[in-house]
């Protein structure tokens, strides 16, 4: 919302020497956020009023003229101009060199310089209204120059002064005052400034029409329309509003239209209470405020045709609805050029109904956005008084011929009892009772203190929900005292236990393990999934939740697995990287196992935290890629201190996995995840073109952190340990797990063979068909002595014999 400082000054005498930055700061800190403050005159820097003395033809151009202009300097200036309405004696706006204008009202502002136009020197520019941003205030035809002859200003007068633009405009953040309906107008802000600066607020002189007539209004729904004032006036034809009114309306961002409409807007901008004028000659019979019938139609002022429902409130004459209450007038009875007589509406409507209607028809207006904040019905008096005095001013011959004030649901001011002791405790500060009383009274509250009890009566303009509980009173006191004036006090809450959250620590360790030890990059993706990726990863969508208004038509599934989005992320990154490793930890959702843990009526679906990773490489051997990924999972438990995981082929191959390269992830006997190479079909569906991706996903909720570190100290070997490599030929389908098991045998205590580790595997020319070469590294040593080479050889030979015996291994080389 925009506010004009000079308009505010109509209601409170703000000292001339006030620091406006401080005023904006004070309002921001204590009341509403001032987002910006503009010194309006700056827009008109280097612009003055000029008087055209002579209009001469241009020697080189038919459409241009040379104007000899008096701009208050010693000598006349020649200005080349293409305006169609240039006449000697006319007052015009002259932009001198240095001024900022928009060419033909379009594009970015440019700086005016002395220039030659078709061979003739021109001093600055004679402006059209839209070239200096005044198109709305002075509507003009194409190529029509702004004629300021009606303004009584001498040549050379700064344009800002001549046009009454020496003002400051505050821009208030609307969101910061949704709870303060009283502030939606200049008078409300003036009242707040008066309280903050301890200045007197000027009342709006009450005017009540003194007329007796049979003009009546019916209100069918008092809850939705607590009050409706109608004033029937004659002798109010359409004409332009005076410049002062247009100027103010324009300055705060609305477009002046004609005197009748401008008065209603002016009253709204001043008091915050919307008003409306009907052409009374077009109203048939008398006015009723009622609910619309289902299917009842109305054409609005903006030509929208609506089919209404019974939740909508309308203003109706004897025939039909003539306005959508609190939102917009109808086309039928709107102010036309022929209007002579009007009915002025000053009404109060209930907030939530107005909001529903405005939203239902996507038709929010200045009026509806004010009504939906909950305006108090008492404010109608102010709006009525101001409107009547403006009408009298503009239409001295106006006669009020009908008046009806239906106030069917009176507003009761909010009454609150506050304990002063409680107030002091919550504020953390003891303030004097007189001080509290003074500050609240300056805001319009009535205060009665009796011992510890302070009885507060809220002003009507704060009684529509804004002030409702004792905490609201505390806020009023605190903000009037100034939040900056309360020192930060450390909290002293004592706790009897140390915070020890092992599950949180485990998640933390796992992420750090993956990122820092395993070199994986954490990514975030959305909780919704693309249909293509879902169908690539899941055999069906049974048990997958959906959004009713998804971000995109093909992104309605809510994830029950992290893999679709992770696979999509692999596809996105393969354009830029040949090899990368990513992981994501996030919540997944299932349409099953609904539980009501927090409220017996609230059943929430099963939600678990999952962890998923992708190892992507273009070119790396699949075996290596697989082993790298497997290593990350195999060592995870050890490095993150949790109960171990095992990887083995269980009963169900993951739907998305290659038919050979996959394993399931187990914790004990429970399967908690899958691991494997993304198969070609799924990869393609997820947008992956060529890169190989090994994926894993596991259920974080199933992981169990150790309560403490559990690995035990092992004594350092006293005697040398020897590493002994053996290469052997084995059948191609021999599995390392079996080789290792056979090599280690039963592992009696004191055995010389300490370990058998994989070194490499080889298939190639020198290896016979159906065979592979496997190199295994034995660690051999004794706990009692240094072994001789004969003893070492003997141990190695025994291992080799066992392998030959159990697996058909054939010694290749040593």
């Amino acid at each position: 919302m925009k506010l004009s400082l000079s308009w505010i000054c109509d209601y409170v005498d703000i000292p001339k020497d006030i620091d406006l930055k401080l005023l904006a700061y004070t309002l921001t800190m204590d009341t509403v956020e001032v987002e910006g403050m503009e010194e309006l005159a700056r827009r008109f820097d280097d612009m003055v009023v000029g008087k055209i003395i002579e209009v001469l033809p241009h020697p080189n151009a038919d459409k241009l003229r040379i104007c000899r202009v008096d701009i208050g300097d010693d000598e006349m200036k020649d200005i080349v101009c293409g305006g169609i309405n240039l006449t000697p004696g006319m007052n015009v706006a002259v932009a001198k060199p240095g001024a900022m204008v928009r060419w033909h009202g379009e594009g970015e502002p440019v700086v005016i310089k002395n220039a030659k136009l078709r061979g003739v020197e021109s001093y600055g520019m004679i402006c059209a209204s839209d070239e200096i941003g005044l198109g709305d205030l002075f509507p003009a035809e194409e190529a029509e120059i702004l004629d300021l002859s009606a303004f009584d200003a001498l040549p050379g007068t700064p344009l800002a002064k001549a046009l009454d633009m020496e003002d400051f405009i505050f821009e208030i953040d609307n969101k910061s005052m949704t709870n303060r309906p009283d502030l939606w107008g200049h008078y409300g802000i003036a009242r707040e400034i008066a309280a903050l600066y301890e200045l007197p607020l000027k009342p709006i002189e009450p005017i009540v029409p003194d007329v007796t007539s049979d003009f009546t209004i019916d209100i069918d729904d008092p809850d939705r329309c607590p009050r409706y004032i109608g004033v029937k006036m004659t002798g109010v034809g359409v004409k332009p509003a005076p410049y002062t009114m247009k100027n103010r309306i324009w300055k705060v961002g609305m477009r002046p239209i004609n005197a009748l409409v401008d008065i209603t807007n002016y009253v709204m901008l001043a008091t915050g209470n919307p008003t409306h004028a009907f052409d009374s000659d077009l109203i048939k019979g008398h006015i009723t405020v009622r609910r619309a019938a289902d299917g009842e139609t109305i054409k609005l002022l903006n030509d929208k045709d609506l089919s209404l429902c019974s939740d909508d409130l309308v203003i109706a004459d004897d025939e039909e609805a003539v306005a959508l209450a609190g939102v917009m007038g109808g086309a039928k009875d709107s102010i036309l050029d022929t209007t002579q007589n009007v009915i002025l509406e000053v009404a109060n409507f209930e907030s939530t109904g107005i909001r529903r209607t405005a939203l239902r028809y996507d038709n929010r207006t200045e009026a509806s956005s004010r009504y939906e904040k909950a305006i108090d019905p008492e404010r109608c008096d102010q709006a009525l008084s101001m409107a009547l005095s403006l009408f009298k001013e503009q239409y001295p011959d106006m006669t009020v011929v009908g008046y009806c004030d239906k106030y069917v649901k009176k507003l009761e001011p909010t009454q609150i009892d506050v304990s002063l002791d409680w107030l002091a405790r919550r504020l953390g500060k003891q303030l004097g009772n007189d001080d509290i009383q003074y500050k609240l009274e300056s805001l319009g509250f009535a205060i009665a203190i009796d011992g510890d009890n302070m009885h507060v009566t809220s002003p009507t303009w704060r009684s529509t929900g804004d002030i409702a509980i004792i905490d609201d009173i505390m806020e009023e006191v605190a903000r009037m005292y100034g939040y900056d004036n309360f020192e930060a006090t450390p909290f002293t809450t004592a706790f009897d236990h140390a915070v020890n959250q092992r599950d949180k620590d485990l998640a933390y360790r796992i992420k750090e393990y993956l990122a820092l030890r395993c070199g994986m990059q954490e990514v975030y993706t959305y909780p919704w999934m693309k249909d293509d990726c879902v169908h690539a990863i899941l055999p069906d969508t049974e048990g997958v939740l959906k959004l009713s208004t998804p971000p995109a038509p093909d992104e309605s599934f809510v994830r029950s697995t992290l893999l679709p989005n992770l696979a999509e992320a692999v596809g996105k990154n393969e354009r830029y990287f040949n090899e990368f490793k990513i992981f994501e930890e996030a919540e997944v959702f299932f349409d099953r196992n609904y539980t009501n843990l927090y409220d017996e009526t609230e059943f929430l679906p099963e939600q678990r935290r999952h962890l998923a990773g992708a190892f992507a490489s273009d070119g790396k051997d699949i075996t290596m890629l697989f082993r790298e990924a497997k290593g990350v999972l195999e060592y995870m438990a050890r490095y993150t201190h949790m109960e171990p995981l095992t990887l083995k082929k269980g009963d169900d191959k993951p739907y998305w996995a290659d038919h050979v390269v996959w394993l399931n992830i187990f914790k004990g006997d429970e399967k908690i995840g899958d691991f494997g190479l993304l198969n070609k079909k799924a990869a393609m569906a997820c947008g992956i073109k060529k890169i190989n991706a090994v994926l894993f996903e596991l259920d974080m909720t199933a992981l169990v952190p150790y309560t403490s570190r559990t690995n035990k100290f092992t004594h350092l070997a006293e005697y040398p340990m020897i590493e002994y490599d053996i290469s052997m030929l084995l059948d191609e389908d021999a599995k390392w797990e079996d080789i290792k098991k056979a090599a280690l045998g039963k592992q009696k205590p004191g055995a010389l063979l300490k370990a058998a580790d994989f070194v490499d595997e080889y298939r190639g020319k020198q290896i016979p068909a159906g065979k592979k070469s496997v190199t295994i590294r034995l660690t051999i040593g004794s706990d009692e002595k240094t072994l001789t080479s004969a003893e070492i050889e003997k141990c190695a030979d025994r291992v080799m014999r066992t392998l030959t015996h159990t697996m058909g291994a054939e010694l290749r080389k040593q």
Partner: protein
Amino acid sequence: MSESNKESMRDKITAVLEDAKNAVMSAANENDLQNIKASFIGKKGAVSRLMKEIPNLDMEMRKEAGRMLNRVKTEVTAIMEDKQMELKLKASEVSDDFDYTLPGIMPASGGLHPITQMCYDLNDAFRSMGFEIFEEDEITSELYAFDKLNFPPNHPARESMDTYWLEGHDSGSTAEKLCLRPHLTGASVRYMQTHKPPYRFVYPGRVYRNETTDAHHERAFFQYEALIVDKDITFTSGKVMISAILNRVFGKEVPVRMRSGFFPFVEPGFEIDMGCQVCGGKGCSVCKHVGWIEVMPGGTPHPNVLRAAGLDPAEYTGFYVNIGLDRLVMMRYGVDDVRLFHSADLRFLSQFK
């Protein structure tokens, strides 16, 4: 043989020793040493040449010259060995034209998401003050997202245009209407319901809004909320929490101000601003020339929220702060497009190791 001949032999031998010492001293490498060895104690070296002169000396002098020459040989051999060791220790494994400008090799190249990092930073700060970390599931009901937080029944945020409701769960009572949570505050009620006061906890997490995205608006973003509840906490205690957060994030004291703000679940409510870190408060385009940047809302839990959590608002009070992590991370690194956070684009993420 004359005395002068004797003297001349002694002088020659002494001179050879001196020369050898000097030569060894100035030897620059193994090669030099080999040459020195050859020219002094080799078969054709200076010592051998003098040895050959011995037969020409008288008997008395032959003995003395022989002893002297042997000593020279021993001494020169010894200093050569010393020098050889010295050279060996001084020598480099590589040639002198080694390129020390070659780039270093990067350690393991993974990293945590910048928002996770920020979240962990804040967790550390709050845990050091005895706060617990709480996690709420992301699907919640209108009951917890709005009713229990004192949102009026007609509040705009409840409408489908702002919140992601779930298909098949988008009608009925507010307990039956389920959505992706639009904010974190509902989690505070769940925590309070299931724990005993006083409370001191944080609950970070992702929240969702159904809106059009651009560089400053996202459908999914992270919030970090902290709540402390006890008897007789004053609203100014909130400033302590805020300072803890900002000092952690920016590594120094950051000016903070609290001003009036309105949110249904707090009373009084505040907008909390920090001094602009770009211009130091002087005013710049980032802070729209006011020197302050809005970083978080906060305030005292509304009595209705405390009641919803089963507490007596006459007895208990507290303070909430709610931080938009995305925004804080954007400020920390100068990121100018919030959509990058959920892009999973490694070109972006790999910058935050």
